[in-house]
């Protein structure tokens, strides 16, 4: 096997370890810390009903058998029935995924589109207006609660200016506010990173050489500095995407009633549907692992020096 295949194999193995660990955490939290039977049944349930549910969930088995069983059904993508909707959990997830992908896709695209030019100009002219906008945005990303940012945007654009719908799914226009809410803090963090990695690159001797040779600015940026600043920037974008998928979308989807996976997680908690929540956690973990894996492969192509 050549080096690249080894790289892929090792990364796959590491991803598997992450998934297994998450599964173990989910298992410990749901089965050992809490009592699923107590959560899923009403308080006045009879002992016989409890016993039936316990047996149906396999809780009368020894713990290690339960865990193996748990693993087997998860890897077969069998997440059981939703307690709330009385249909397979995998169907609910499949139904909700596109909305979340739309939101994350639009939000992250917007963040990158905002951050790259802002960060570049901020790096080239430190202290000027674009630099200040970048600093202000990054402070927003650091200090403003996401849910509050969303509500303020609703107030300004839906209640006062009346140019955008306040919430709900539907047309492209409905996506604007949620995507902007998701994008703004990420854009701030990204722009700050682009700025600092570009400043590092712009001070490097090879850029001075390029300037001395008389290369045009676009060529220096495009061919030299961007490529070198790509690895940290991509790492950050990947980080932002996984954070959005597994955290920020929950908040943004709740604020805007956007029917994605995050809203489903909150609804599952409200309806005490533990199996659905567990299924969502597992699916999101899987996506995070796949994204990280894909990023690792991209790095390998950008910078062949990177090893496992």
């Amino acid at each position, binding site marked *: 096997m050549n080096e690249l295949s080894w790289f892929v194999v090792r990364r796959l193995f590491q991803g598997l370890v992450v998934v297994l660990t998450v599964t173990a*955490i989910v298992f410990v939290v749901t089965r050992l810390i*809490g009592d699923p039977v107590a959560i899923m049944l009403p308080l006045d349930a009879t002992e016989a009903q409890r016993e039936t549910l316990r047996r149906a969930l396999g809780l009368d088995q020894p713990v290690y058998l339960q865990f193996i069983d748990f693993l087997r059904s998860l890897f077969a993508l069998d997440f059981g029935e939703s307690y709330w909707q009385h249909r397979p959990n995998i169907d609910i997830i499949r139904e909700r995924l596109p909305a979340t992908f739309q939101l994350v896709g639009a939000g992250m695209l917007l963040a990158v589109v905002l951050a790259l030019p802002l960060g570049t100009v901020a790096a080239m002219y430190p202290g000027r207006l674009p630099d200040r906008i970048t600093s202000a945005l990054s402070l927003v990303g650091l*200090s403003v609660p996401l849910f509050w940012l969303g509500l303020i945007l609703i107030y300004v654009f839906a*209640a006062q200016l009346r140019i955008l719908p306040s919430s709900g799914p539907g047309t492209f226009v409905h996506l604007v506010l949620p995507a902007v809410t998701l994008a703004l803090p990420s854009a701030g963090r990204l722009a700050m990173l682009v700025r600092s990695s570009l400043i590092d690159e712009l001070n490097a001797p090879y850029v001075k050489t390029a300037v001395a040779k008389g290369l045009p600015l676009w060529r220096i940026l495009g061919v030299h500095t961007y490529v070198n600043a790509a690895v940290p920037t991509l790492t950050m974008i990947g980080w932002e995407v996984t954070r959005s998928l597994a955290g920020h979308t929950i*908040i943004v989807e709740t604020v805007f009633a956007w029917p994605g996976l995050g809203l489903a997680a909150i609804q599952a908690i409200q309806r005490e549907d533990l199996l659905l929540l567990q299924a969502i956690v597992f699916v*999101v973990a899987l996506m995070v692992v796949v994204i990280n894996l894909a990023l690792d492969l991209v790095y390998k192509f950008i910078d062949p020096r990177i090893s496992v």
Partner: protein
Amino acid sequence: MVAEVASSAVKMRQPAWWRDYAAVFGIAVVVLLILLAVFAPYIAPHDPVIPSLRLRLKPPVWMDGGSWTYVLGTDHLGRDILSRIIHGSRASLIAGVSVVAIAGSFGTIVGLISGFVGGRVDTLMMRWVDVHIAFPGLLISLLIIAVLKPSLGTVVIALSINGWMVFARLVRSIVLSARQLPYVEAAEVIGCKPVRTIFRHILPNLAAPLLTLAVLEFARIVLAEAALSFLGVGIQPPAMSWGLDVASGRNYLFNAWWVVTLPGLAITITVLGVNFLAGWLRVVVDPYEGEKRFARAVANREG
């Protein structure tokens, strides 16, 4: 040399005077937060819990129909918003301090062991940290909260479980580099016991960076507690939290913006202040930063 100083001056985001104003703002915010939280019942002008339907959705004093009796207006149940903000500071402070204390001590212990023992123990522990960090916290927090009952205690547990890894990483890296220092090596060579080496020689190196990280984490926890309470899985009414107040004002956003805006502003100002404080601490408590600052000042005077 001059070029290096210049480039590091460019890297610094703000000039020194701005940094100090930000620090004053940060310290003021933190002191205010602590005072409000400790003396809430004495400072708050009204009872924060008892509803009064007659007084529903009164605007703040600077708007038409506002009065000095309810400076920041009232919410949808006629409760004084200022009083609720004052009382809500308690949840933020308690959550922030307890999570930082629990996650901080656990992370520090893991980091000390990992860095000091090394070898296979180190590899295993750091793998654990890597895996845990790779997996996003909010979902696991939701799972833990769904299993236990939502309350301030549950929030603290859930956030601590997801918050210790940064401390472990920081402490481990400092221990590793501190062990390379000549005086620590000398202490080990002359036969200091590990406990003495750790507590007497390595721990003082940890104090400054740990303090800065703890303050930064405090800001993050305040935000996380607010988010969980907003989602309805954090603090439960009648207990008070800023995130909870933002959530309950949501339905009145279109005709009473202040119910949502003001508690949210309280969160933002608190987090901003704490972040400024952390930025200032990083400079003040780090002797190397202090030297750099001095050198920069000298270079600026000469250039």
